[in-house]
């Protein structure tokens, strides 16, 4: 990638038109995320953290400004193209784990791969990643409801990593976990980062933010 940033925000604004007047969620934010970084995004609720993460994850496009993902401008992209970027280049980890309840642990991890490739190959890769995040083989066939919160989040991380994304985006990954389980999850993320994975994580827990090597503070839609 020759030193090119994974993500570059140029004067990015996101404005939600509301009946009571426009809500400026992000106000001319410029930032870059370089390969291999581990960034914590902090700020009070309503500050625009989630909006920032949605834009980073190609779930949304800016009202104004430009966003480059590995040098590629995303604002003009079609829904299909954005979806393909999310599938191939980005891994998501959510606070609620958000596993598909109808699928077993291993099938959940497999899911993003099944959107692109054939079954056999994906199963091998899914098992490999699940093992890497510390899920025992006995749990592979379990449905999410049969797993503990910590196990579910491990499976969710495995799902985010399975397509080897350029960028791992985490939205309060420990928000629904007790502190011990939370630290175990953070250790996994930190280990992934040490192996070169770029991680951006939204949190309001300073203890969790301490795992990151850089912190971006958002206040009232601006980088503080």
């Amino acid at each position, binding site marked *: 990638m020759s030193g090119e940033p994974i993500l570059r925000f140029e004067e990015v604004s996101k404005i939600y038109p509301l009946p009571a007047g426009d809500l400026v969620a992000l106000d001319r934010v410029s930032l870059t995320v370089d390969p291999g970084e581990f960034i914590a995004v902090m700020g009070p609720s309503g500050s625009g953290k989630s909006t920032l993460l*949605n834009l980073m*994850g190609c*779930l*949304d496009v800016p009202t104004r400004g430009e966003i480059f993902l590995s040098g590629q401008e995303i604002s003009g992209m079609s*829904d*299909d193209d954005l*979806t*393909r970027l*999310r*599938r*191939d280049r980005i*891994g*998501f980890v*959510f606070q*609620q784990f*958000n596993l*598909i*309840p*109808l*699928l077993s642990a291993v*099938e959940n991890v497999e*899911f*993003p791969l*099944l*959107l692109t490739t054939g079954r056999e190959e994906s199963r091998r890769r899914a098992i490999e990643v699940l093992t890497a995040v510390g899920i025992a083989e006995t749990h592979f066939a379990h449905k999410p409801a049969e797993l503990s919160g910590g196990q579910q989040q491990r499976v969710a991380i495995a*799902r*985010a990593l399975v*397509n080897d994304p350029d960028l791992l985006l985490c939205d309060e990954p420990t928000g629904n976990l007790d502190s011990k389980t939370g630290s175990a999850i953070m250790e996994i993320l930190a280990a992934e980062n040490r192996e070169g994975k770029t991680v951006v994580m939204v949190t309001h827990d300073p203890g969790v933010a301490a795992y990151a090597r850089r912190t971006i503070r958002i206040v009232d839609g601006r980088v503080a």
Partner: protein
Amino acid sequence: MIFIDLAVRNLRRHRARSFLATVGIVIGVVAIASLGIMGSSLSMLVGGMVADVSDTVLVTPHLAASSGDPFDPRSALAASISTKNVGLIEKAAGEHRVVPMIVTSDRLRVRDTSGYATIYVMPATDIPSLIELEAGLYPRGRSSGVMVGSLLADELNLHPGSRIEVGGESVRVLGVAAERGMGIDINPDYAIIVTEDWYTERHGPQDYTRVVVKVSDLSAIEDVKAAIDQQINRRSEVVDILDSREILELYYETLDAMNVFLLGIGGVSLLVASVSILNVMIISVTERTAEIGLMRSIGARKREVLRMFLYESLILGVTGSIIGGIVSVVIASYASASIADLFADFAVSGGAGIPISVVIGYVAFAMAFGIGTSVVAGFYPSWKAAQLNPIEALRYE
């Protein structure tokens, strides 16, 4: 395919709901198929009751106004066609056989049963061309014997050789006619058939009430009709000229209308079923909003989400239609048998079995319709699911 898999699993997870939606489709498919089959078996029965007289042109005294249907009792009248006009008809018909006849009635008495019976009077030589013999002999010349219709013979237990009283005179039954069914020309099943000579000997010469022209070549029917019209109706309408095809068409039009009506009833039940599928799918999409948001955010495209939900309604439709198809075939075979029983008294010629091709046709139509409605009903919820904004859907609880 992961999305088919997910659709199947979701349907299994909500067994009761999926089962009920399927039952709706089953009922709809059965309704369409069995009503369709029943309707067409009814047309077939009526078709069987109407004798095949497609080679017949019927000439009757002209009615000032009528429905055009010779079975219409409102247009029965005692009018006649003169001998001179019969001559003109014969001239017009050329080589085709012309049978002038008198349709009248007289008192019939057999043992202790008595009442009026229809009497067909026609030239002795023409009787074999219109009526087949079941037993005995055709009446000939001035012989004192008569012929009786098959059902009259059954009712009154008559055989060749039996004695009956016609108009107070004792006569011998010479022959029994074969069953003929309803026809536009003659309906001799419950009638007595006598020769013209026999009749004129007793009642004097009379004008004819109708003339039947048997056309040996079907393609000549129109020409014969036109020729008769030319000969007789040139100055004023004297006779009505009908061919059986026209009349059968009237019948089949009525039956077709009834068929459409029956299918309509079936269609309504399938419509109700599709509303229930719509309902099930909307519930399913709403319940799984967060899941849809997740799938979309990790890379499932709109069309993949659309497909996943369409598979669900397709599976419901296909399952319901297959079960419905099987049930319809079973019902149809019973219904066919019982309709045949019901109409057995009408002496349907050729039996009332429903051809397998008709059954397959209607069942296939109903199944296709069932699957089609399910997919259409599932489309809106599926489309809604695909259009969900992933961010908002993810937040949905």
